[in-house]
Structures are given as structure tokens and as C-alpha cells.
């Protein structure tokens, strides 16, 4: 409605500008309030100097209500009403205290995320420790638009997962996250910013419809007929970073541990995936094409060699090699040096 008024856009612009300026000052003077720049080493413990409290809209409503009750009771010298008003008022205050304490001492011990291809959501896994003093309920974690809520029992660790949108290959800083709670009555918003010094790798997005693998002549004969997921060679325990599709759910349910299918290292032909051979494509498209080929080669059980400027990987195959190749592709220098690490 506001935007339709003439001049509103200019006003809006002014307001945004002003708020940015205020934030800049705040960042300089009160780093904990904004925590835009200062990166922190894990583990991060929330202490009183970085926890902020403001009443939530219902909290303002209740505050107003209690104020009216108190003034009325004082005016009428109505003692039971006054007592009621003071009890409610101080209960609101105690709820603030209790909410504050459910943040204080919370430790963020670990942030992990398995690499994904650009464009896929990256699942970040935050590990929070409650500490030995209290259990914590109704905590929420927010990053950008995404948020998740969790509770931690005393002395336990909670793992909270949040999906991060990705758009670009390369290092993606986790950025600042907000831990907040409305516990216990929902009348106060209590929050703290954390800006962990962590980044996760985003692999390049593989080309959607790429031409077939460039097979070298000596690798033409034997093809490994085994596709993935047909006959696993063996099972091993889940390790962080294993793709979910490899989890053997039935076996996992039976044993109580997450089990992952491991495939026999297949014997296949060698392929050369050479940066120079896709020279006709634009820079990023080359990377996407190579990523596709690397994935295809791995899926088909071939041994493959990746040649990119300054690096030669392989020939080899297997999960480690695949990730090494994708990593090398992800970390190829950006064509314009400005884009890296700019994601907020």
C-alpha cells in the first residue's frame, strides 16, 4: 500500500539507507549486535554480552495489558487486583529471565555440511551442546529465510539441520546465523548472532545434457555392466559425507547403525577428461561439462583422469577420486574475481 504512494519509493530508499548506516555504526561499536564481519572460531559459547532481548508483539500487548491493570488497580486502590497485576508483571519478567538462561551457556560446537552441486540445497548440520546445567527447550536457529527449532536435554548435543540455497561453485561461507528463542511464554524474543568461521564447498553444477564421455581408444572393449545399486559388494558404517542414496535402509534398521553400500571398484576403461578438449565452450560451461563427465565416469565405473589448468588428477576411480576431482573443478579460479565469498 505504501509503495503505491508517490515518493514512497524514495522514502523507502532513504529508510533502507539509514538503517544500513546504523548497522554499519553498530557493527563497529557493538559487534555482537550485528556480527556481520567478525568471524568466530568454534566452539562458540553464548554469554550475556552477546544475547539480546526485545519483547515480541504479543509481549508488547501483554505489557500494555499489565500496565493498564496496574494503573487501574492503583487508582481504585484495589489490592487484590494490584497483587494480581504485580504477580503477572513479575511472571513476565521471570519468563524473560528463563528465556535468557535457555540461551546463555549454549555452545555451538560444530557446523558441517557435505558438498553439493551448485543449485542444490546444501544441508548444514549444526551441533549444539546444552551443557551440564540445564536442558533447553524451544530454541530456534535461523539463517536467511530458513529456520529450524530444537530442544536439548541436559548434557546432550542437538544436531539441527538447515538447508542453504547454493548458486555458485566454490567456497560458500556459512554466514551469520541467529539463534533465538521465545521460550517459555512467547512474549520475548531473545537472540544472539553467531558468525562461525566456516565455509563449505559447493561443487559446480553438472551440465544437464552433456555429450557422451570422450572415451579413449584403448578403453573401448570391456565395459563394466554393473550399474550402481544392483549388487553391493559390502556394507560399511555411515561416514559423514556419504550420499544418502547409498544408505542401506533395511540393513540399517536391522542393525541400529546407519549402513552404507560400498561398491566393488569396477574395472573399466580409462578416460581422459581434459580441460583443453572442451575449449570451444565458455569458461563456466567447461567446468560444468567436466563435472558432468566426472560424474558419468564414476557412475560407469571407469578409471578417469582429470586435467585442469595446473592440476592433474588420476587416473583413478572411487569416491575419493570423484570428490577430489569435483573439488578441483569447484576451486578453479572464478572468471571475475569479485564473486567469491560474497554470499550472505
Amino acid at each position, binding site marked *: 500500500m505504501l509503495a503505491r504512494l508517490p515518493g514512497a519509493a524514495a522514502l523507502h530508499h532513504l529508510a533502507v539507507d539509514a538503517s544500513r548506516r546504523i548497522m554499519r555504526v553498530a557493527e563497529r561499536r557493538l559487534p555482537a549486535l550485528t556480527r556481520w564481519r567478525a568471524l568466530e572460531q568454534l566452539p562458540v559459547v553464548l554469554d550475556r554480552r552477546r544475547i539480546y532481548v526485545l519483547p*515480541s*508483539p*504479543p509481549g508488547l500487548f*501483554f505489557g500494555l*495489558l*499489565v500496565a493498564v*491493570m496496574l494503573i*487501574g*488497580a*492503583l*487508582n*481504585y*486502590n*484495589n*489490592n*487484590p487486583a*494490584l*497483587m*494480581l*497485576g*504485580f*504477580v*503477572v*508483571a*513479575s*511472571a513476565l*519478567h*521471570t*519468563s524473560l*529471565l*528463563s528465556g535468557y*538462561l535457555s540461551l546463555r551457556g549454549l555452545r555451538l560446537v560444530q557446523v558441517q555440511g557435505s558438498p553439493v552441486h551448485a543449485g542444490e540445497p546444501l544441508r548444514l548440520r549444526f551441533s549444539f*551442546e546444552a551443557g551440564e546445567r*540445564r536442558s533447553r527447550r*524451544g*530454541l*530456534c536457529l535461523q539463517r536467511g529465510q530458513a*529456520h*529450524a*527449532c*530444537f*530442544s*536439548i*536435554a*541436559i*548434557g*546432550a*548435543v*542437538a*544436531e*539441527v*539441520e538447515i538447508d542453504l540455497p547454493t548458486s555458485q561453485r566454490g567456497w560458500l561461507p556459512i554466514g551469520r546465523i541467529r539463534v*533465538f528463542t*521465545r*521460550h*517459555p*511464554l*512467547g*512474549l520475548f524474543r531473545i*537472540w544472539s548472532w553467531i558468525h562461525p568461521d566456516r565455509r563449505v564447498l559447493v561443487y559446480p553444477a553438472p551440465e544437464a545434457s552433456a555429450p557422451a564421455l570422450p572415451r579413449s581408444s584403448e578403453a573401448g572393449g570391456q565395459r563394466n555392466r554393473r550399474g550402481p545399486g544392483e549388487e553391493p559388494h559390502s556394507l560399511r558404517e555411515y561416514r559423514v559425507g556419504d550420499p544418502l542414496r547409498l544408505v542401506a535402509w533395511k540393513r540399517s534398521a536391522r542393525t541400529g547403525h546407519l549402513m552404507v553400500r560400498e561398491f566393488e571398484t569396477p574395472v573399466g576403461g580409462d578416460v581422459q577428461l581434459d580441460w583443453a578438449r572442451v575449449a570451444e565452450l565458455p569458461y563456466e560451461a567447461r567446468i560444468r561439462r567436466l563435472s558432468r563427465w566426472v560424474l558419468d565416469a564414476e557412475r560407469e565405473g571407469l578409471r578417469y583422469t582429470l586435467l585442469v589448468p595446473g592440476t592433474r588428477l588420476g587416473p583413478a576411480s572411487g569416491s575419493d577420486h570423484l570428490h577430489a576431482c569435483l573439488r578441483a573443478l569447484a576451486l578453479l579460479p572464478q572468471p571475475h574475481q569479485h564473486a567469491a565469498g560474497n554470499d550472505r
Partner: protein
Amino acid sequence: MSAATADAAATDLAGWRGQATPVRLDRRSLLWTAAAVAAALLPLALVLPAWLVAVLAVLWAAAVALLRRGILLPMVVRLPLTLLVAGAALAAYDFRFGRDTGAALLATMLVLKLLELRRARDARSVLGFALFASMAAFLLDQGPAMLLAAALGVVVVLTALAEVADHESGALRRPRLRTRLLSTLKLLALSLPLALAGFFLFPRLASPLWGVPGKATESRTGLSDDMAPGDIASLYLDDSPALRVRFEGAAPPRSAMYWRGPVLSQFDGRSWTRTPYRELIAPEPVDVHAAPLRYRSMQEPTDRRYVLALDVPLAAPRGVSLQRTRSLSSRRPLDQVETFELQSAVHYTLGRELSYPAVDRQHYTALPEQFNPRTRALLDEWRRSTSDPQELIRRALQWFNREFTYTLEPQLLGRDSVDEFLFGTKEGYCEHFASAFTVMMRMGGIPARVVTGYQGGYPNTMGGHWVVRHSDAHAWSEVWLQDRGWVRIDPTSAVAPARIEDGLEGLTGGNAEDVWWAPLRNASDWAVRSWNELMLGFDAARQRQLLRPLGVEDADWKTLGGAFAIAAGVALLLTLALVLRERSAPLDPLLRAYRSFLRRLARAGVAKAPQEAPLAFAERAAALLPADAERVRALSGRYAQWRYARAQMAPALQRELAVALRAFRASPRRGPARARPMPGKPGER
């Protein structure tokens, strides 16, 4: 460390903003909100008309049934229903607005709002107004029952708030009812110190900023400003207390306990009324013959202005004026229990000289013409035989004593009420006697007036106070005699002396003090009195005296504000200390034992870094303390086994391990090789 999976609900959660994605309530929070509304309306149910309470109860039950099934009534049903019920509530008070009308409307709206309860926001506004309803109930009544009901309301409202907040943050596993209620009670208990500091020390207003809204209906019993024979009858049946009195010294005899209320001096042939303009003149002077009685009176609310005092009051307390006729009148209607510090003279001479002899004599002998001719004739006849006022009084009282009977159910009287009473029915109660006697005196040329009030009282041995009940309501006469001033004549005592000696029960045969439940009654009355004293009687004046033990004689609002700030600070510290001390679950004994094991190792020079796993640490310790290597490895191994596979270890083994861990002592060092401090960043926790 055992990992707890996050309670992350995939469905709607309130984000940081909360408003962007309004959260729909689940059934559990809906029902809690409904329960909170019921609990918060409980106090109001005690004072609202019964039929309205019944209608609201039915509506509430219907709303709960709909909420359980998740049905939302369409607007076409809700709107007319709301208008209908609200209209009915208004009609119950004849569309007059007052405190009670407002409370009824609030209750109605709260129940109807349940019908459209959907989102967390709705629930919160309902809960807020529910708290307000508890408060509104206190404007209507302030008894202890009310407070209990309101306390229950607060507990349920806060619990419902927590329930809604929990749902909003997507906690899948909600605590059980017991845990929930306990945490609310804990919250309230922790809030109590601050609340008490506020209650006692927050500076009070000596005079209100704005007036208390009146009530649309008069429902309280009490004396009225006029008296027509037959009026007080309803009071006689009301056994509830009107007044509680604690005397500073010995109490006067019961027969002398005349509690002075409004004085009526204008007679229109049927009823007696006050003459307000005359009451503004300075009070009639009193000569006191004995030491005045000091007492503290706690008067139940009447919604009227009169303040009862023992005949006759000597001074007016704050906020009360002493009228010309020595009745006390409050500046505002008494709508709650009020405490007054009073002093009265029991032996006195009131108004030895009439201040304005001509006017006063005329005023106090005025009677309407053409009423009660037979009485007038009788008095004219008496006056011919004697001119002594005392003789006239004696004759009248003798006549009453001889021929009249006391009854609470007299026949109705017509136009010449005094004639009909004196020469016809010859039966009645105090009003009849006082009215007839005063009229007779006026006809005999003696200034006379009617005093209404209460007579008597019941000692409550438990509380050491006296209770005056509404059934003790009484009316008597005062006549003005030369040199003696206004003299109290109670014609009822001439007819039924037992009424004065033993109270109403003395006449009807029952005795209030002898019934088997008298102790119970005394105890409950004592409880109510203490409640009144502690809770209701605390006002600006008492607050000023509160700091007296601390050497502050008469605390003004600044001192009080300071005291409040200090007390609030102390209360907050107390709360904080309690909160910080809390530990939801005690540490496992094995964990404690392992810590003591770590302390021993630290003393031996090997401290465990927080991030170090037990087994890795054991290896490091074993390397540094070769003498204890085996023991350290074994204990750590078993501890790690317990820590990470807790379920598999039998309780007996756990206990054994705890004992072994505690028993561990590092062997004394031989070599000078002090262990190096632990690796890692020393500053890290």
C-alpha cells in the same frame, strides 16, 4: 555424548518475525486456551447473574466441542450469535453501563472469541483478555474466594501461553500435564518476591486519579438514606457481617453498642429522610464524660457513603466527614472493605445547646399537616396534663411496654401509618417504634429525630474482635432535652428488652453463640478478617507507616520509590539466585566419579582438555604416567564403554566402576619428569 535429534517440525513454525507465517494452533493449545478462558472467568462467575453464567457455560462447552472437531462456524452464524448474547448481557443490566455490565460483556466476548480461535495470535489475545477478566472480577468483589479463583486463572492462563509458545516453536514432544503445571507454578513462585515488593512498596495513590465507575445494579445490603416502616426487614434476614471491630481496650457492654449510621430528621407522613444540606454545618458539640474508646472498624462494602461508628464518634478519619448530626459520611461510596481508625464517646452530652435554637427547634419538630390526627389528639391531651418532656417520654415508653409486641412480620400500614400502628396493629419492629415514638415526641413539642444504624455485636474470641451483622440493623430515636442535649431513646428496648440485651436471636429463641458450629463460624470470620486486614486494608496510609521499623517515620513517595527499587533489586537477585542454582537433573554418579578421577590425574600433572575423548586422553596419560598406564587405560576404557553404550552396562557394574574411579590414586613420582601441560590451546574451554 548422546545426540538428541532436533525437534524440528517440518510443518509451520513461527519464524523470527512470527507474523509472516501465522501459526495455526493445534488441538492441544486450543483446548488449553479454552481451559484458560474457563478458569479466568471463574471469579466472574461468582458475581455475574446466574442465568448469564449458565448461558456462557453452555456456549463454552459448545465452543470446546467445535474446537475438538476443528470446526469453524461461518461468519453468518457467529456474528448474529455474538450480537444476540452480548445484547442479552446488556439487557440483563437494562442497558445501563457500569463495572458489572462491563465485566459481563468482557466475559461474553471472551467465550464467543473461542468460536473463532485459529491462530497463535488469536490465542494470545484471548489469554491476555482472560487475565483482564480476572482483574475485572476484583472490581466487583474482593473476597478470598475471588482471589483463589483468580490465582487458578493465572496459573491456567500462563500454562496455556507456554503451550501456545511451545507449539509455535515446533516442539514435537510436549511435556506432560504435570510437568507443565509444575513449571508454571515454579515460574510463579520465582516471581513472588518481586510481586510482593511491588505490592507493598510501590508508591500508592492517596487519592484516585479518576473515579471508580459505578455499578449498574445495586445489589449490596446496607442501610438506606431513608426509612419507611418495613424497609429494614430484608436486612434482618441477612446474616452476613456488616462490620468487624477491634477495640483497643475493653469493649463496652453489648447493650451500649449502638452503631450510628445516617440520622433522619425529615418526615413526610410515611418515610423518614436525611436533610443533606443541614449536615454540612459544623458538627454538634460533644461533652465527653469518660475516656473515649479507640477502635479499628472494618466495614464491608455497601456502595453507599455512610460509615458506622459507635455512638457518638468524636473525629472523622481521612476521607470521611463528620456531619452535623455526628454521623460519619465517606467522600465516596464504599465499594470495598474499608478500615477506619475511630474514637467514640459512650458517655457523653451531645449538643447541650441547640446551635440555632429557633431554626433547629422548628426543624426537629416539623411534621406534615393532616397526617395521623389521632396521635396528634393523644399528644395534645398528654400535654394538657404535663409540660415535662421527660414525663411525656415516660408515658410513651410505658404505653409501648404495656400494649405493644415485637414482631418481624407486622401487618402493612396505610396512609396514617403512625395512627394505624399506635391504635390498630400495635405490633412491629424497631422502625415502627422509632418512627412512631419520634412522631409522638415532635407532636409533644420535643425536638426529636430518628437514628439508623446497628445495635449489638458478637465477640469472636478467636480473632479478638466483634462482628456486627446486617441482621443487627436497628433504628432508634434521639430527643433533645434542655440541659441534657440529644438523648438516645430506644423505644424498642421498652417493648423487647431482649432485643437489645441478646440481639435478635434473644427474641427468636436461637442464640448465635451456642450453636454447635459457632467455633467454625468464628474461625472463618477470623480468616476473613485477617484477609481484610492484610490484603484489603493496605492503603497509602498504611504504606506510609510500613517503613517505621526502619526508622522512616512518614515515608513519602520518593522514599517509597527508593525502597521499592531496593526491594525489587533484592527480589530480582533472589529470583536470579534461585534460577541460576537450578539443575534439572542431578549429575550421574558415574560422571561425578569420572570427574574425580580426572582431578586426581590433573594433580598428577595430566589434565584432560575438554575436546579430548576419554580414550585418547587415556593414551596420553598412560604415556606420561607409565606407572599407572594399565589402570588408567582400563578405567578409561570401561568409562568410555559406559559413556557411549550406556544401556549395555549392568547397574552393578556401573556402581563398581564408579567406586574404582573414585579409588584411583596416581602412584608417587620417582623421576623428576613433570608432565608437560596438555596440548591444545590453553585458553580454550
